[in-house]
């Protein structure tokens, strides 16, 4: 069943590979509506997105059942529309997450799916296509295919230029990717221009102190870092880490507050949650760790900054329920703090985290380390 013969397909009906649009020779046996040119692409698609959406594709690709009344037909159409929109969002988020995790190869099929559904729903020249183009561009960049990335980006830019009503968020994303492209092409002048635009649009859309704006600052900082303008890069990195710290700590406080307020009332435990989607979490981890590495390698005179980042990372991991990593982050703070005798704020955090009672199994280890420290 797995193999199909292109010659046996009825005339006028062309089966294309899901990934590369070449004539198909294989079919997914689970859904029987998806075709591939070979096992390589099938495996890639399965690993990336198909495993997650396999069954969801069936209603979209088979013909609609027969409905008796107009009302039912309308309802059926609406449902179809909704399914497609859901898939668009889902594929998009999955692709984004892969990107932030650095799995560019896996991101491509997911992004392609998102783009294809977008084309179906919104038409070819809609602004809605832009985010998918951007994802593809980012993935291609990650894979080192600069020409392809540029193609996607030009497509996106052209779409944005033509449209009159494009949100600031989309503008910001477009400019961020253009900036990344120019970084990859080593044209730092252009890259700076685009990243500045990115920050501007993101600020218009979300405000200057939002986590979604921080990405632009981070990339800009990277440029200045590679230009050896350390002071400048340092202020920007500090800005990014402050943005994340304020967001996460306020979220953490709100969570603590909610927990103390409501547990006795409903007996319900509040799950830890960062208030971010997966892609943003991945982005946060990537940004914060790379800043940390840079900080450690360059500055020895400002340990507070390092501590701030470690603290932020600690809270982040804690909220993401990754206690062992949280522990690593929290435990590596005090040595820095003690060594410099500048900041002892890290210790309360350490005490607070086992106190919440979630990380029971690592409590002992912590107390041991704490007592050895104090």
């Amino acid at each position, binding site marked *: 069943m797995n193999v199909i013969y292109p010659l046996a397909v009825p005339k006028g009906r062309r089966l294309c590979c899901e990934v590369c649009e070449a004539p198909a020779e294989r079919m997914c046996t689970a859904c029987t509506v998806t075709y591939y040119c070979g096992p390589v692409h099938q495996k890639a698609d399965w690993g990336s997105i198909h495993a997650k959406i396999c069954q969801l594709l069936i209603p979209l690709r088979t013909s609609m059942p027969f409905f008796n009344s107009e009302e039912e037909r309308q309802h059926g159409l609406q449902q179809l529309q909704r399914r497609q929109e859901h898939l668009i969002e889902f594929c998009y988020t999955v692709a984004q997450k892969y990107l932030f995790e650095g799995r560019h190869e896996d991101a491509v099929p997911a992004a392609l799916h998102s783009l294809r559904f977008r084309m179906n729903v919104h038409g070819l020249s809609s602004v809605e296509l832009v985010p998918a183009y951007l994802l593809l561009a980012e993935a291609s960049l990650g894979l080192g295919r600069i020409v392809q990335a540029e193609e996607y980006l030009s497509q996106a830019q052209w779409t944005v230029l033509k449209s009159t009503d494009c949100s600031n968020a989309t503008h910001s994303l477009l400019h961020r990717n253009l900036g990344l492209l120019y970084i990859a092409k080593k044209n730092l002048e252009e890259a700076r*221009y685009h990243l500045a635009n990115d920050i501007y649009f993101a600020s218009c859309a979300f405000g200057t102190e939002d986590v979604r704006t921080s990405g632009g600052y981070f990339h800009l900082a990277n440029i*200045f870092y590679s230009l050896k303008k350390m002071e*400048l890069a340092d202020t920007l990195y500090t800005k990014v880490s402050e943005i994340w710290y304020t967001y996460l700590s306020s979220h953490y406080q709100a969570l603590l507050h909610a927990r103390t307020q409501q547990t006795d009332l409903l007996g319900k435990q509040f799950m830890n949650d960062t208030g971010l989607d997966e892609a943003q979490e991945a982005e946060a981890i990537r940004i914060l760790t790379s800043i940390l590495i840079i900080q450690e390698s360059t500055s020895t005179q400002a340990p507070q900054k390092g501590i701030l980042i470690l603290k932020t990372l600690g809270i982040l991991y804690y909220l993401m329920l990754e206690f062992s990593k949280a522990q690593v982050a929290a435990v590596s703070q005090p040595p820095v703090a003690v060594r410099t005798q500048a900041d002892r704020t890290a210790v309360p955090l350490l005490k607070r985290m086992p106190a919440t009672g979630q990380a029971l199994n690592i409590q002992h280890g912590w107390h041991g380390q704490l007592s050895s420290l104090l």
Partner: protein
Amino acid sequence: MATFPPLSMTRTKLAVLARQKLPCSSKSIPRAQLIKEKDDIDYYLEQNIKGLSKEEVAAHRNSYKKSICVDMLRDGFHKSFTELFSLMEQWDKLREAAQARSLFWLQRPLEDQPDKLDNFYHYLTKAEAAERKGYYEEVYNNLYALACYFDNSEDKWVRNHFYERCFKIAQLIKVDGGKKEAEAEAHMGLLYEEEGELLKAAEHYEAFHELTQGRLWKDATGQFLNLIACESLVRTYRLLSDRMLQNRDYKQAIKILIKASEIAREGNDRSMEGEASYYLGLAHLASGEYETALSVLDRYSEISTSLDDELSLGRAYEAMAKVLQSQGEMTEAIKYLEKFVVIARNNFKSLDVIQACTMLGDIYNEKGQYNKASDYFQQAFSTAMEVTKTTLMDETKVHYGIARAHQMMLTMNGYIESADMNSLNCLLSWKETRTQVEYDPILGEARKATEDNIYQFPDAQEETRRSPENQ
């Protein structure tokens, strides 16, 4: 590229003009001269037919605000950007608040004023660059320059924002012994004073005063900072005490004013000291401590005399007269008031003259010396006529009328009480004419007022004209 000698071409005047206006045409080399070799075209195009660069396109497409922001960011001035951005957001909020209160919002947005944006860009980026290097003094200077630039009525809030920033920065500057800090304190004081938060203003001014004590710093106009500190502190204290007096909190007001006069004394400025003691005297008067009020005001008059300041001397006399009046020592009060009238008249202070004359008239009125009272009220009235202020004129007119009535009442009473033919005749004749009668206790006779006397008082005339109808 090979250039051939120019062809002689005859053109009409209009064509020449048109050619001059065309941006692409080069004046020296006409087109016919250009004979292209193989790869020359690019050079020619570059020189003469210029396309738009990316920046130029961006400048055309985007708003000026955006270009400024992007320029800041691409050079890494993210703090400047954040500040500018938040200021613009604040402007939006202010406008919305104004709309909610259905006020007509006149102020243009910052985005539409490129010169202001340019200033923002210039100073903010400079300040940030200096801050990065730790030159706080320069940061302060740049921020202060911005504050000065926005020192007009419509951009007060921007100026206040930068005053606050200056204040924060100034606390980091330690090299100059606190001069910048003192200046920043002064600005904060001014800010709160304008907003009407006098307590906070006084706090900042106190800090300002403390920092400048014993220093010989001067500001840009060459005034001693310490003196300015004293002045503003005294002024704020006075405003505070005014507020307290309104709430009848005399003790506090006096306490504050005593503090003010001490500071004024420290400031080594006699006129300021006098001023402070004047207000202290008034506060004592309001709280009913007449003796202290008198002694304080005495000091004020002494200072004024030594400074040859007639105006303040007049004010001193006036205040003293008020104190004496409330003490009941009328003769003394009259003495001072007369001095005050003289001074005011010499200095052509019509309003003061009117006030003094009215007060004098009041006193005489109370004492029953109606002639004198009406005399002074007449003076007040005629002075009011000179300055042509209707409200004042009306007021003095009423006073004057009352005094005149009082004056006549005695005579009328005499006539009625004596109840003989003569008096009756007089009464009747007065009723017919309704003119001025003067009291003459010896003769008991009423004399008609002279014609010009009537002429001066249109009211009386009107009365006479109307009387037949009333009857």
